[in-house]
């Protein structure tokens, strides 16, 4: 099993595009909120734009609760969006149900985050796979053709021999097997776009690798456009052509995977890559964990109900400038390869006016007492 180098894959045609996608969830207010004008909302996703291309994998990384899953569900039209647009082959779509919804989901399929929750415990694998085939007219005519289609699906996700799994109930499957059933179900609709929400987070490394290889293979064979959501930046590096970083509901950086992971531009991305566990770092170091390596977390993630003004990362940013607290940074291009970051650090004028870090929070008071800082770990590379 090999995960091939994939950085060189040609950029295909845009299949699905998010333009200024925004989702606010209303929340139950407290007593005092009653008297305020605006109802409280969770700013789960704000102004997210990107494109999924044929035969390419786009990774979406970011901290917990930054809105990654919400983006995927929005793209699958499971939530109505608050603002923005979703374009399938360039045409704006907004479907809630009915025939047009089914036509849409035939092309765009979602694999939900939790493999333990997304299979109905009362149904067999057969039921789970037959449904998309039938709904989207891929079941063929007669029981034999259906059986062939089912066997084919299972074989494609490497669940062999298929007859061993067809009549199993979800609880009789391991996590990796479940995940593959979920993927097979999505493939049953024969889609153009696959939205895979953390398909591997719960699996051990060997099973994880199997699933990723499968997706890689599908991308290449079927020319699928894939959105790959993950916490595991290292796998994004290996697996995705393009990587987008989200923080608190906003996109903060995007570009070619290798570039984003190896030369992160946005301070948050640097924090992220710096925090990722990396055995290479300690090999040869004096045994045991080195506490001084612990990176400063820079406090808690922001509230999404009242997100910070300006750059949402500024309260935790070691290089914050005054402008960061007031003005929302636009996408600023870093190099021609398409690498961009939403950070004032890449606006020459701003940096000139106000040195980076001048408005940074007093880290010592917010950081836990026992930690010593090692700012900007990613920079060093």
């Amino acid at each position, binding site marked *: 099993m090999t995960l091939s180098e994939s950085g060189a894959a040609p950029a295909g045609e845009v299949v699905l595009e998010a333009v200024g996608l925004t989702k606010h969830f209303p929340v139950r207010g407290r007593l005092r909120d009653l008297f305020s004008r605006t109802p409280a909302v969770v700013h789960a996703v704000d102004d997210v734009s990107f494109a999924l291309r044929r035969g390419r994998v786009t990774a979406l990384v970011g901290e917990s609760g930054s809105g990654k899953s919400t983006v995927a569900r929005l793209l699958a039209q499971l939530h109505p969006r608050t603002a923005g647009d979703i374009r399938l082959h360039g045409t704006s779509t907004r479907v809630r149900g009915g025939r047009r919804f089914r036509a849409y989901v035939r092309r765009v399929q979602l694999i939900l985050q939790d493999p333990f929750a997304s299979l109905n415990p009362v149904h067999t694998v057969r039921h789970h796979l037959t449904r998309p085939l039938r709904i989207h007219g891929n079941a063929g005519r007669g029981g034999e053709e259906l059986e062939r289609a089912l066997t084919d699906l299972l074989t494609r996700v490497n669940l062999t021999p298929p007859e061993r799994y067809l009549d199993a109930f979800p609880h009789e499957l*391991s996590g990796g097997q479940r995940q593959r059933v979920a993927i097979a179900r999505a493939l049953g609709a024969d889609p153009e776009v696959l939205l895979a929400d953390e398909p591997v987070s719960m699996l051990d490394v060997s099973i994880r690798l*199997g699933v990723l290889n499968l997706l890689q293979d599908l991308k290449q064979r079927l020319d699928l456009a894939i959105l790959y959501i993950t916490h595991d*930046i290292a796998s994004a590096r*290996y697996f995705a052509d393009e990587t987008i970083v989200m923080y608190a509901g906003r996109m903060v950086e995007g570009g070619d995977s290798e570039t984003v992971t190896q030369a992160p531009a946005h301070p948050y991305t640097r924090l*992220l890559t710096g925090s990722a566990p990396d055995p290479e770092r300690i090999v040869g170091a004096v045994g045991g964990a080195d*506490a001084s390596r612990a990176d400063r977390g820079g406090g808690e993630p922001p509230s999404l109900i009242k997100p910070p003004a300006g750059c949402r990362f500024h309260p935790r940013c070691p290089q914050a400038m005054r402008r960061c607290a007031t003005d929302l940074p636009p996408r600023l291009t870093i190099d021609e390869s398409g690498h961009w970051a939403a950070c004032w650090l890449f606006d020459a004028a701003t940096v000139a006016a106000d040195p980076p870090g001048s408005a940074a929070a007093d880290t010592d008071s917010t950081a*836990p007492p026992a930690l010593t800082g090692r700012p900007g770990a990613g920079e060093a590379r």
Partner: protein
Amino acid sequence: MSDPVLEIRGLRVDYGLGDQAVRAVRDVDLTLHRGEVLGLAGESGSGKSTLAYGLTRLLPPPGVVSGGQVLHHRVDGPPVDVLTLTPAQLRAYRWAETSIVFQGAMNSLNPVHKVSTQLHDVIRAHEPDSTRAGRRARARDLLRLVGISADRLDSYPHQLSGGMRQRVMIAMALALEPQVVIMDEPTTALDVVMQRQILGQLAELRRKLGFAVLFITHDLSLLVEFSDRIAIMYGGRIVEEAPAAQLYGRALHPYTDGLLHSFPALHGPRRELTGIPGSPPDLRAMPTGCAFHPRCPRAFAPCVGELPPLGPPADDDPRRAVACWLHPAGAAAPGRPTPTDHP
């Protein structure tokens, strides 16, 4: 190497009884030394959690401990076998000597009690003569220790973020300054930033307080970075045990080797990921001999017939141990007569 604090000998844990039983942990021997971090990794379903619950006897029905010993070496006094304690003794032993942090902090904290109540509860249970004020002061200190401001004491669990809850659990685990802290995937649900924050604090606290940690995760890279020694489980048994750096540098067991070649690294040059072919064994119908042999690329005749014992390989560092016929232990060799069966 320092003194052992927890010695697990021949621990066997089953789910169910008789023929129906799933033997989830099979004859596990493991030693945790004072002050060290012992990482435990392995395949999903290999029995890591079962081991952790079993040695503290917290396994819910139908789990039963069907044999073995769990010796806890007190700082003063003779070792006790946790498996022979009466419920009352067990209660007194728990938390004061060994505390546990489970994976889901949301589920570990009682949703209807304040954080302070839950902290007080544990102190009062073990130190009945402590005063209210004393307990409160201690609770404050504990929260501060894990970097949460003391005014969060009166919060309910749901008012805290996932990371905070996990840190509250860690604070609670340290409340009685136990010798051993067991952590079962304490950070799996968190993002890497939060994970690093928590583990950093933990490492710092360990240095200060000197407890030993049994750390379970399947994130190998994390384990390599965070622990002193690593044990790898497969099919209910420990298959390899070694200092972290040594294990990462050179895995002896083919399964460990497979694992190390399964995870992508964030930094450094891209390398080839090979993975492990095949699928996990069925605990009800384990393969004969070495459980890994059907998937093992280097399997040879003895692997099929006989179970390799776990021991220091003859040709390597004595601090390591492996259960593989490729690296026969000093004493053991293939073809050794079949050992006695259990009744």
